C-alpha cells in the first residue's frame, strides 16, 4: 500500500465525481485500485484514467469519497487486475450507469492510439450522465426518455447498430444488464468478441480470501475484473 494525495475533484452530478490524484499510475484500462480513505472501508474502484477514479455514492465509503477535498490523503493498492484487451479495429463500448468509469479510460486509450470507438451509454435519467459530451461517437439511452433514446441500452444496441461489425465489444454496468448482454451476444454467437468488466464484493483484493469468486471459481480481483464472454458460465 502507498499513499497519494487528491489533486482535484470534479463534480459530475449530485452523487458522482471524478477524483484525480497527484500521481499517475502505470496501468491499463480495465484495471482497478483498492482505495482506502482513512477511517473508512477500503473499496475497489476502476481507474477512469491513469490518475483518476470516477465514483458514485451508493453507501458509506463512496459517500465520503464524493465529498473528499483536494489535498486529502488516500491509501492505494494496485493498480491491479486483468485489463481490457486492445482491439485491432473499431471498438464498441457499452456502459450502464457508473459502468462508464473504466470505459472512459478505455475510450481515451484507444483514441490516443489512433483507433476508432463507438459508445452506447445507458442511464436511468439524464441527470446521471457523466461528461458525455467529451465523447465524439456516442449514443445515449435513458430509461425515462429524458435524453437520447428512450429505453435501455440493450434496446438501443438492437436498433442502433450491428454488433458484428466491431472488432471487439466491451461492456460494463450493473450485473443485470451484463447478463442480458451476455444472453444477447451468446444468441448472436458473438461472445468471443465481448469483454465484460465485472464487480464482486471484495475483501482482500489480492486473490487470497476468495470472497470475489465467480460461479465458475474464477476470482474477480486477481483473474478479472475483465473476462471474455466465453470464460463466463452464465
Amino acid at each position, binding site marked *: *500500500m502507498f*499513499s497519494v494525495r487528491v489533486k482535484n475533484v470534479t463534480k459530475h452530478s449530485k452523487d458522482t465525481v471524478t477524483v484525480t490524484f497527484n500521481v499517475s499510475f502505470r496501468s491499463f484500462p480495465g484495471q482497478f485500485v*483498492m482505495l*482506502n480513505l*482513512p*477511517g473508512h*472501508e*477500503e*473499496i475497489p474502484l476502476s481507474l477512469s484514467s491513469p490518475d483518476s477514479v470516477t465514483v458514485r455514492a451508493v453507501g458509506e465509503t463512496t459517500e465520503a469519497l464524493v465529498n473528499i477535498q483536494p489535498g486529502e*490523503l488516500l*491509501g492505494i*493498492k494496485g493498480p491491479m487486475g486483468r485489463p481490457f484487451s486492445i482491439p485491432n479495429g473499431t471498438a464498441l463500448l457499452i456502459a450502464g450507469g457508473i459502468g462508464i468509469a473504466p470505459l472512459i479510460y478505455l475510450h481515451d486509450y484507444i483514441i490516443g492510439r489512433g483507433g476508432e470507438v463507438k459508445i452506447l451509454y445507458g442511464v436511468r435519467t439524464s441527470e446521471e450522465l457523466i461528461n458525455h459530451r467529451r465523447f465524439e461517437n456516442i449514443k445515449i439511452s435513458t430509461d425515462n426518455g429524458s435524453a437520447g433514446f428512450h429505453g435501455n441500452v440493450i434496446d438501443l444496441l438492437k436498433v442502433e447498430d450491428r454488433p458484428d461489425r466491431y472488432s471487439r465489444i466491451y461492456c460494463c454496468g450493473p450485473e443485470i444488464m451484463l447478463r442480458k448482454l451476455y444472453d444477447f451476444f451468446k444468441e448472436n454467437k458473438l461472445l468471443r468478441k465481448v469483454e465484460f468488466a465485472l464487480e464482486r464484493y*471484495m*475483501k*482482500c*483484493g*489480492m*486473490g*487470497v*480470501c*476468495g*470472497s470475489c*469468486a*465467480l*460461479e*465458475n*471459481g474464477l*476470482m474477480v480481483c486477481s*483473474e478479472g475484473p475483465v473476462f471474455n464472454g466465453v470464460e463466463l458460465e452464465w
Partner: protein
Amino acid sequence: MLDIELCGIKMRNPLMLASGILGSYSSSLNRIAENAGAVVTKSVGAEEREGYRNPVLINYGDGFVNAVGLSSPGAEVFSKELKNFRGGCPLIVSLFGSSPEEIAHLTSFFPFADAFEINLSCPHAEKVGLAVGSDPTLVREIVTYVKKSTSKPVFAKLSPNVNDIVEIGKAAEKGGADGVVAINTIRGMSIDILSRKPVLSNISGGVSGEAIKPIALKCVWDLYENLKIPVIGVGGITTWKDVVEFMLAGAEAVQIGSAHFYSYKLFFSLKESLLAYVRKNEPLKEIIGMAHG
C-alpha cells in the same frame, strides 16, 4: 507415490488448502480440489458474522498480515453453499465458536464433510479465537465435545501465540483429537507512516506467509516429538522444498494458504515437483519425521 492416509482419509497427495483461503464458496473449492489432496473450508460459526471492515489484508513483502476476521455466513447457509462441492477431494469443514457446546453443535450441519477442523486460534477475533485456544482445559473440553458429536476425524488447529504450543497440543490429544494442525497466524500489525494510522481496519491481525515458515516448522517439530497423533504442518509453505522440509520435521500432511497469492496452479505445480522428488527418493510418507534424532 504421493498418496497418504490421514486418520483414515485417503488423499492423493499431502497438500491441503488452508482454511480461510479461497474457501468461502464451492466454486473456488471445486477448482482447488482438482489438484489438492484435501481442502479445508473457511471457518464457520453458528450465526452470521460480519468479519472486519476493509482493509483486511496487507502484503508486507515477507508475508501477509490479515484481519479478515471470522466472517461467516452461519452454519446453515454455509452448508447449503457447500452442497455444490463436487467432491474432487476430501472436504474438511473448519469450525469456530466460543463454547464446547456451540462448536460441537455445528458438525450436524455438515454430514457430507470428510473431517472437521476446530479453529482454536484466530489471533484477531475476540472471544472465539485465541482466547479459546490458549487455555488447555477449555481446548480439551471442546475437542471432547466435538468428538462426541461426530464419527468423522477431528483436527485441532493450534496457535503459535502461546507460551507452549505442546501443552495445548497435548490437551487436544487428551480430548481425543485425531490430529493437530499447526500453525495459525501470528499476531501482528502494520502502520502507514503517511496517514499515521494502523493499516488494517481492525488495527491488528495475523501474520502468515513465507516470513513465518521457520516459526511454524519449529512448532511442527516440537509437536511431533511430544504427541502421538498426526501433525499437519502449515505456515509459509510456498515451494515443494518447503513441503519436504515440513514432512522431514514430522508433518504427515501440509496446508497451504498465503502462497495462493502467487498462483492458483500451486497445487498442480507442487504435485508435479514432488513427483519428481519421489522418483529420485523414497515415497513421501517414508520421510515423515526423518530429520529427528
